């Protein structure tokens, strides 16, 4: 019981009691809503010695408001609780309308949304081009002034390259296993088992070695770049760099870019090596092919360009992954949710661009007959 009500014809006497504190909100609210105010002309409240916290003062104030709008006069026995005065003082200005009001589906809104998306997309492309422009300028400046920050680059080669060797090796090995199994199963039907070697070596060297390495790097380093730079952006570290006079792109982006451009081709080399080894092992196990024969067949299958056609793509993919990561990271503004969204975007975008450019490469090499 937080409330004692005594009805006296048109007068209602209320005496507050008990602990009017926020944890009791639900119970007090229930008692107050159960109170009938119909026909009440005078409401007399006794709240002396009553501790009201702000939450409960609000409840009392709501009740008084209800009584007043019903035409009742409100008076207090003794002084009114001070908390009520505090509430009155706070209540100035109209309440704001919620910004994220979720409206029900509205066709006009849908059209508006399409337009907004289109504009945002166009702006995004313009931003991306501007970023590449700033990066190029920073690169020219850095080269001209001889400030390429080799120590920083080496750290990034270590972080993105050396520490990724185990996972890249494992995935390259597993891919060659998958290729060999599939190839063996299908080609055996034509008695062309020996072509498994062609499939594995050409597949790994031309396409899969570099493509998978780039995708791993997008997931591993692209996301790390975006999260790292995004957190720095949230913490105003990027602004601090600018204010100190260090160009953020030169200090943050270029070393990451160079680090990945160096690391990705080297990792591709590792992936190729492990992939071919895995192929040899599987051919030996599945087809009882001696390693000697595998090597001979591989020599025949590989043209002089096969290896280079794969590796030449690595630095290009590295640029795509590093730029996606850094661009998205630096685009983070204001909130942790943005950081999450842009880190996701960095990875998705990097993988998309890598595969797109790989398709272009495939078409070009086809036309060049390499």
């Amino acid at each position, binding site marked *: 019981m937080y409330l004692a009500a005594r009805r006296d014809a048109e007068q209602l006497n209320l005496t507050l009691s008990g602990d009017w504190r926020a944890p009791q909100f639900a119970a007090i609210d229930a008692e107050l809503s159960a109170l009938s105010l119909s026909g009440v002309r005078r409401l007399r409240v006794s709240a002396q010695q009553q501790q009201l916290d*702000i*939450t409960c003062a*609000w409840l009392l104030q709501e009740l008084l408001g209800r009584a007043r709008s019903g035409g009742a006069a409100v008076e207090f026995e003794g002084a009114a609780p001070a908390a009520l005065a505090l509430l009155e003082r706070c209540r*100035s200005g109209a309440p704001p309308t919620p910004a994220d009001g979720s409206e029900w589906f509205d066709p006009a809104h849908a059209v508006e949304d399409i337009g907004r998306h289109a504009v945002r997309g166009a702006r995004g492309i313009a931003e991306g081009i501007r970023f590449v422009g700033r990066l190029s300028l920073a690169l020219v400046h850095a080269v001209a002034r001889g400030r390429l920050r080799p120590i920083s680059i080496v750290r990034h080669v270590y972080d993105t390259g050396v520490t990724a060797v185990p996972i890249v090796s494992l995935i390259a090995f597993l891919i060659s296993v998958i290729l060999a199994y599939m190839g063996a199963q299908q080609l055996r039907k034509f008695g062309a088992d020996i072509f498994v070697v062609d499939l594995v070596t050409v597949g790994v060297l031309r396409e899969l070695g570099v493509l998978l390495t780039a995708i791993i790097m997008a997931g591993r380093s692209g996301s790390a770049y975006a999260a790292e730079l995004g957190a720095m952006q949230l913490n105003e570290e990027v602004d601090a760099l600018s204010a100190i006079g260090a160009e953020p792109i030169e200090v943050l982006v270029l070393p990451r870019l160079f680090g990945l451009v160096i690391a990705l081709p080297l990792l591709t080399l590792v992936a190729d090596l492990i992939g071919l080894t895995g192929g040899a092992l599987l051919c030996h196990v599945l087809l009882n092919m001696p390693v000697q024969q595998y090597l001979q067949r591989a020599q025949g299958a590989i043209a002089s360009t096969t290896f280079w056609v794969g590796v030449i793509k690595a630095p290009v993919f590295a640029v795509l992954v590093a730029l996606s990561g850094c661009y998205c990271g630096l685009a983070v503004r*204001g*909130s*942790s949710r943005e950081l999450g969204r842009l880190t996701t975007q960095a990875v998705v975008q990097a993988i998309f661009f890598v595969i797109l450019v790989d398709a272009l490469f495939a078409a070009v090499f086809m036309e060049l007959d390499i």
Partner: protein
Amino acid sequence: MAAVLEVRGVVNRFGSQVVHAGVDMTVEEGEIFGIIGGSGSGKSVLLRTILGLRHPNAGGVRLLGHELGSLGATELHALKARYGVTFQAGALFTALTVRQNVQLPMLEHLQLSAPALEQLALLRVQLVGLPAEAAEKYPAQLSGGMIKRAALARALAIDPPLLLLDEPTSGLDPIGAAAFDELILYLRRELKLTVVMITHDLDTIYRICSRVGVLVDGRMISDSLEGIEGNPHPWIQSYFHGPRGHARAARHGA
């Protein structure tokens, strides 16, 4: 009067660096206790220890009648409904608006009706002196001083009997800081609120603190303001009787 907060012999070490070499402090109900100390004297570490965010290397903390180390998850959750905290940099949730930030502890600890949730959040925002429009803004859109106030609004959201504040007035303009002092005094008078705050603001110390604890040499010296002012420790002497201390003390007639 019951002790709301008791810190007994707390030792905090980071590697070989000893930050606290046995800190003792007691805060009674209804007190406004100011913690001062030089940079790096471990004020924030002490606050983190009191909040249970850091387990001390030795010693114990008794908060609102509960020994921190011995609480189960449910009891700890219930205890957290009884104090409000602000952090030095505000620590507002950047993905939420100010209103949602204030509502979060309410949703976690209180059973409120939907209109109560809306209105009480708005009320808290206005209580700390923010304009109503600020309720729908995101932390990134606020100035430093506004972030401090929004953080205080969040700390007050569930009407806790204890407030733990880390430098609540730093970054506020003098008018805002004075309004903050008045608000705290009011809350203490009306709601018997107990406040523990880390502060460097001499005005705030003179205006509202009933007792002061100084962290020096890894220990805490706590006393009434007059007692602390008369303490012969050289750091305390230069704190209160340095050029800034003199100016403030003169203004407050101390």
